[in-house]
Every structure is written in structure tokens, then in C-alpha cells.
């Protein structure tokens, strides 16, 4: 008899009890914390005279506020320094391991967990950050929580949670040249809507997902929340195990790898598992997707026209009109040729090594357009170091990109990296909300990293598939 989906199995293994509210109390296998959403939770613990129950299953890093240019302490900005100091104090007091900037392991929390082997199949993983869904790429059940819930997890090692439905999204076929994982998830959100996933967890499956490396799977799971799904996951397979074997944790504990593999295999969704919904997407049909509006669901293929608001469902029309006004785009036109002022290569969606490698191949031997400010912000210090060793930093810098230190940076503009005025940004990040990148008049166009590289070169939204012969400006 079927034991169900990965979601069912991981849930059952972590369920402590059913609470009087009907919610389940779930054990948390890994709690990741950072400087923005945790200080208030530690404050609540102090108020209640409580201690951290499972410090060894908790891991901290600093990412949201950290400057990516000058990281010498104290930070230029007092508020950033205060938040960092508070985190340092909290982790020291509680005995929580901290991937701080001096460790060489610091980075965006959703890059750090996977690269150290903390993220593993069959774990429940939470963090006070909505992009925690990223870790689902390893077959973990991972989701974002708020600060009061962080308090609960710190104090009890558990979380009160309601079970959701599971929608299987099968992406079958092969992605074409220039089409990436990012385009798959932007297409999914565009089709199912920004709230289509509310009440669901997404299971990504199908040959196009299986063909992806872990980084691509992370990009997809990362943006589950932009489609309303609090969590998304991919069943673990050989690709997952190959990644895990190389991580610190399993390099240091090789016996654990063999010991845990049967567990990882056991939590894969059964072939005859039942799903609450199944959606199929043809990978061969996809092209690079870019957003034209101010929600991640307002996307189109690069050769497609921007929709007339009237052609959309009634409840989407107002939002579309306002978005088109903000973005200054015309329905009927494509996004190609849309002027770009800033190119941002970074974020927990697309700042891992393969993302930077692919973008570097586009950039190599070319120059950033005179009117464009372009920056690369590696996802972690380790990504940064390897990229530098591989010569990627040189390629980007020679082309005119700024090469920064690791952090969330311009994805949400909590540090100095922000859009100014009504600048338009070609961005490899995950949210194009009004004001998201630090300026309320700023305009964000979401796209895959190679498309960002192409836009940096041409100064406008460009179909990267058309670029290779078109714009070589240097040796």
C-alpha cells in the first residue's frame, strides 16, 4: 500500500502530537537563523525566561543587512552594526554555530545550508525567511516562518502547523538553449498565479526537473513561495546524493552517508502516491521568461507581447493596469528593448557557482553598456572564493561589472545596494514588487542570470539566444 508522497512521509516522521487546535506539532530538524527576523524572537525568549532547546540543530549566518562592499567593522550603518552585534551576542549565549564573515562560510542562508551539508533529504527545515522553500530541492520539507514562530522553534524545537495539499508539477521534455530553471519557475507562477499555490506544497517532477543539477532545482524550489506555495520539493536522487557526498558534513562523517541513504530513499514519493492536483508543463515549449509587471506572476516569454489588461481575468486587470503604469510598458509590445539602468546578478535564487559561470560566458570579451551599473554579488563566501579561483571575477571586472562580497544585497535593498529613483533593473532575484529593490519608483525585471548578463551588455532587455553573434565589442 502506498505510504504517499515525500511530504506525507516526512510529516509523519516529524509529527510529535496533534495539538488542541487540530494543528500538528512538528519536530524541526534544522533551524536556520539570520540577523533580521531572529533578534525579536530571542528577546521574547528572554522575556519568558526560556532557553534555546536544540542549539545544535540551529545554525546562523548574516546576509540581509551585511554590506557587500566594505565589510570592516563597525559597519558604516549603525543599524546594521547593531543587528549584527545582537546576532553575535545571541548565538554566543545560546551556543549556536555561526557562519560569520570571518569563517569564510558566510553567505545567504539558503546558499550556506546546502553547501555545508546541513540541508539534507527528509529533514524539516525552517527559517524566518520565505525563501526557505529553496531547501526543498534536496527532498527536505522546508518553509519560511515568522518571528513568533521562530520563538516557538527556539524554545521547543517544534512548530505548530497544519498539513497542506500536494500539487505535483511535472515538467516533461528538454529545456532549449538559453532556457533555465528560472524560466521554468517563472512560467509555473505565471500559469498558476501568485496565489495558485496557497494551501499547497509543490512537488516538482518530470524529466526536465530530473535533468537539472542541484542549483537549478534550488532556483525552482526557491520561488515556490512567489506562486503562493509555502514549500516546494524535488524527490532526492543520485544528483542529490552526489552533491551531499561532497559537502563538509559528509566529508567529515563519511559513515553517515551510507547510514542515512536508506532513509533518504525511503522518503521518496511512492510511484502510486496520490496527489491533490497534477499539472503538466511541456519543457520544450519554454523560452526565456521575463516579467513585465510588479508581481512575479506577471511574466511573458521574451518573444511574446505584453498582455492587454482587458484580456486578463477580471480580478487581475486592475493590478495589471497599475503594474504597466509603474513599469511604463505598453501592452502589445514585447519586453525586448526595454531600457535597463542596473544589472543585478545575485540573490538566493541565482547566485550559485553555475549561475555565475553561465553568466560569465555571456560577459566574456564584452563590455557592460555605458549607461548600465552592473554588479555581481556571489551567494556565499565559498561561491565567491571558487569563482575567483576560476577567473570569473576577472571576466566580470574586465567587462565592467562590480564584484562584491556575499549577501542578499539588491534583492531587497536592506544594505547600501539599492536602486535610485526610477532606475530599471535587470535582476536575477525573485521579487519585482514595487519598492523591493530599495526605491519606490524603481522598476525590476526578473530574468535568468544569462539574460541579466545580456541586458548588462546591451543596456536593454535582450533575448540572450540572439546575442552571441550580435554584440561582441572587445577581444
Amino acid at each position, binding site marked *: 500500500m502506498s505510504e504517499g508522497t515525500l511530504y506525507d512521509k516526512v510529516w509523519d*516522521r*516529524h509529527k*510529535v*502530537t496533534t*495539538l*488542541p*487546535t*487540530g494543528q500538528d*506539532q512538528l*519536530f524541526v530538524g534544522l533551524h536556520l537563523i539570520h540577523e*533580521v*527576523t531572529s*533578534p*525579536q524572537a530571542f528577546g521574547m525568549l528572554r522575556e*519568558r525566561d*526560556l532557553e534555546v*532547546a*536544540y542549539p*545544535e*540543530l540551529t545554525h546562523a549566518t548574516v546576509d540581509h543587512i551585511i554590506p557587500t562592499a566594505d565589510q570592516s567593522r563597525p559597519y558604516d*550603518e549603525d*543599524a546594521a552594526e547593531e*543587528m549584527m552585534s545582537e546576532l553575535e551576542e545571541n548565538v554566543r549565549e545560546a551556543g549556536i554555530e555561526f557562519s560569520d564573515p570571518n569563517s569564510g562560510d558566510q553567505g545567504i542562508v539558503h546558499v550556506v545550508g546546502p553547501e555545508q551539508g546541513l540541508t*539534507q533529504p527528509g529533514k524539516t527545515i525552517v527559517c524566518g*525567511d*520565505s525563501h*526557505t522553500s529553496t531547501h526543498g530541492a534536496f527532498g527536505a520539507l522546508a518553509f519560511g*516562518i*515568522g*518571528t*513568533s*514562530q521562530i*520563538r*516557538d522553534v527556539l*524554545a*521547543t524545537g*517544534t512548530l*505548530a502547523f497544519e498539513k497542506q495539499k500536494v500539487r505535483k508539477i511535472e515538467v516533461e521534455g528538454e529545456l532549449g538553449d538559453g532556457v533555465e530553471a528560472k524560466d521554468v519557475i517563472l512560467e509555473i507562477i505565471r500559469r498558476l498565479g501568485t*496565489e495558485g499555490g*496557497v494551501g499547497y506544497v509543490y512537488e516538482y517532477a518530470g524529466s526536465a526537473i530530473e535533468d537539472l543539477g542541484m542549483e537549478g532545482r534550488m532556483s525552482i524550489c526557491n520561488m515556490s*513561495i512567489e506562486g*503562493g506555495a*509555502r514549500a516546494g520539493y524535488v524527490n532526492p536522487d543520485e544528483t542529490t546524493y552526489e552533491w551531499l557526498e561532497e559537502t563538509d558534513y559528509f566529508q567529515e562523517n563519511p559513515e553517515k552517508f551510507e*547510514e*542515512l541513504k536508506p532513509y533518504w530513499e525511503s522518503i521518496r514519493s511512492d510511484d502510486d502516491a496520490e496527489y491533490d492536483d497534477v499539472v503538466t508543463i511541456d519543457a520544450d515549449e519554454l523560452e526565456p521568461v521575463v516579467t513585465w509587471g510588479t*508581481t512575479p506572476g506577471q511574466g511573458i516569454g521574451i518573444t511574446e507581447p505584453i498582455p492587454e489588461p482587458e484580456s486578463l481575468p477580471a*480580478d*487581475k486587470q486592475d*493590478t495589471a493596469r*497599475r503594474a504597466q503604469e509603474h513599469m511604463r510598458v505598453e501592452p502589445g509590445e514585447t519586453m525586448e528593448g526595454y531600457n535597463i539602468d542596473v544589472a543585478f546578478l545575485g540573490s538566493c535564487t541565482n547566485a550559485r557557482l553555475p549561475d555565475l559561470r553561465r553568466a560569465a560566458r555571456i560577459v566574456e570579451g564584452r563590455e557592460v553598456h555605458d549607461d548600465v551599473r552592473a554588479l555581481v554579488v556571489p551567494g556565499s563566501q565559498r561561491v565567491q572564493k571558487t569563482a575567483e579561483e576560476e577567473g570569473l571575477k576577472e571576466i566580470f571586472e574586465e567587462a565592467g561589472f562590480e564584484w562584491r562580497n556575499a549577501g542578499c544585497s539588491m534583492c*531587497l*535593498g*536592506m544594505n547600501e545596494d539599492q536602486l535610485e529613483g526610477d532606475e530599471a533593473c535587470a535582476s536575477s532575484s525573485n*521579487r519585482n*514588487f*514595487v*519598492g*523591493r529593490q*530599495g526605491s*519606490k519608483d524603481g522598476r525590476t525585471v526578473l530574468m535568468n542570470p544569462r539574460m541579466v548578463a545580456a541586458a548588462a551588455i546591451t543596456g536593454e532587455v535582450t533575448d540572450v539566444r540572439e546575442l552571441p553573434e550580435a554584440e561582441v565589442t572587445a577581444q
Partner: protein
Amino acid sequence: MSGTDDVEIPEVDYVSGSGVPIRGNDIDTDQIIPARFMKVVTFDGLGEFAFFDLRFDEDDDQKDHPFNEERFQDSSVMVVNSNFGCGSSREHAPQALMRWGIDAIIGESFAEIFAGNCLALGIPTVTADNETIQALQDWVDENPDGELEIDVETETVSYGSETIDVTVDDAQRKALVDGVWDTTALMKSNAGAVRDTARELPYVESEAIPEAE
């Protein structure tokens, strides 16, 4: 170390107050509280920054927004449209709204993390269909001092001469009505069962599991 016993958790079975309509779908938490106001280590004082960029222009002059209108200054029930609170998980968003004066939200639909954060603060997020919500928003606009009564237990909202059916998620309703929406003490009381669950998980090393108190 059993300090949680002295935390008083009120029952939230009924909320009343005048309303404030916030129209539009997909209002994300970056709109509710822009990231630059999150560079703080407490939630105190966030109220004045609720919807800041929608309320003020670059010269800090007021723009048209219900939160700026004199007639809505005493409102405590927000009436919103669909997918309210999408995006970032920041609890700063409901914290800012609560500190501005919001005690309950009625809407077409809510993003999950946002609704969970509201519950953790004892703020009901109740839903009704598009037509019902629009009618309610119009009524609130015309009756800024009019009283809205949300009965969480019976899942109804009364205003003027109307009583409408709304939906409250089952777990949310039980948590609010029974006063168990702050789950820390409740879950801490199961610490033994938590350790048992941890011991059964192959990836949890025994050293990571605390001794019984």
C-alpha cells in the same frame, strides 16, 4: 525554567471596531512595511511605518491612502482583497499593522505565512468572496464610524443591518476562541514526546537531544 506559565493568552472570540478599506490584490509585505524600516532589533515603533511608501511621497508629503485619512484614524478592522500579505515572511508586517491599531482583518484571501504570523499575534484573518468584500469595503467607506462585529466562533460579521457569513480556518478558529494561539507553553509541555520523536529520526545525533529537565 518554566517561565511560560505566566504568559496570559487572551481568548479572541469576538472583535469589534470601525473599518478601514485597503483595496487591491497581491498587496505584499514589502508594501506593508518596506525593508528599510526593518533595521531594528525590536518591533516597537513600527506602527507609524505601516504602508509607508503608499502613504508618503519622497518629500514625506502625504499621499491618498486610507491610513492617512482622518476618518479612519480610529479604525481597527481592515478590509482587504485577495492574496493580502504575499511575499516576504516578515512578521514586521502584521506587527506594524497591529501597532497602527489593527485588531482583525477581513479579506478575500491571505498569503499563508502572513495569516500564520497574524494568528501568532492573536489577529483573526477571516475570508469572504469578492462580492461580499467589495460591498463591505463600500459600506466602510460610507460609514467610517460604523461598527463591524466579527464573531470568530460563529464565523459571521455584522455591520449596519447586515450579518454575513465569513470563513475562519478551523485551526485558527480553535486557537483564537480557546486562547491557545500562543503555542510556546503548550508545545513546551510536550518536551518529552519531542525528544522521543527526535530519537526516532536517523539524522538527529543523540548529542543534539537535550536531557530531560
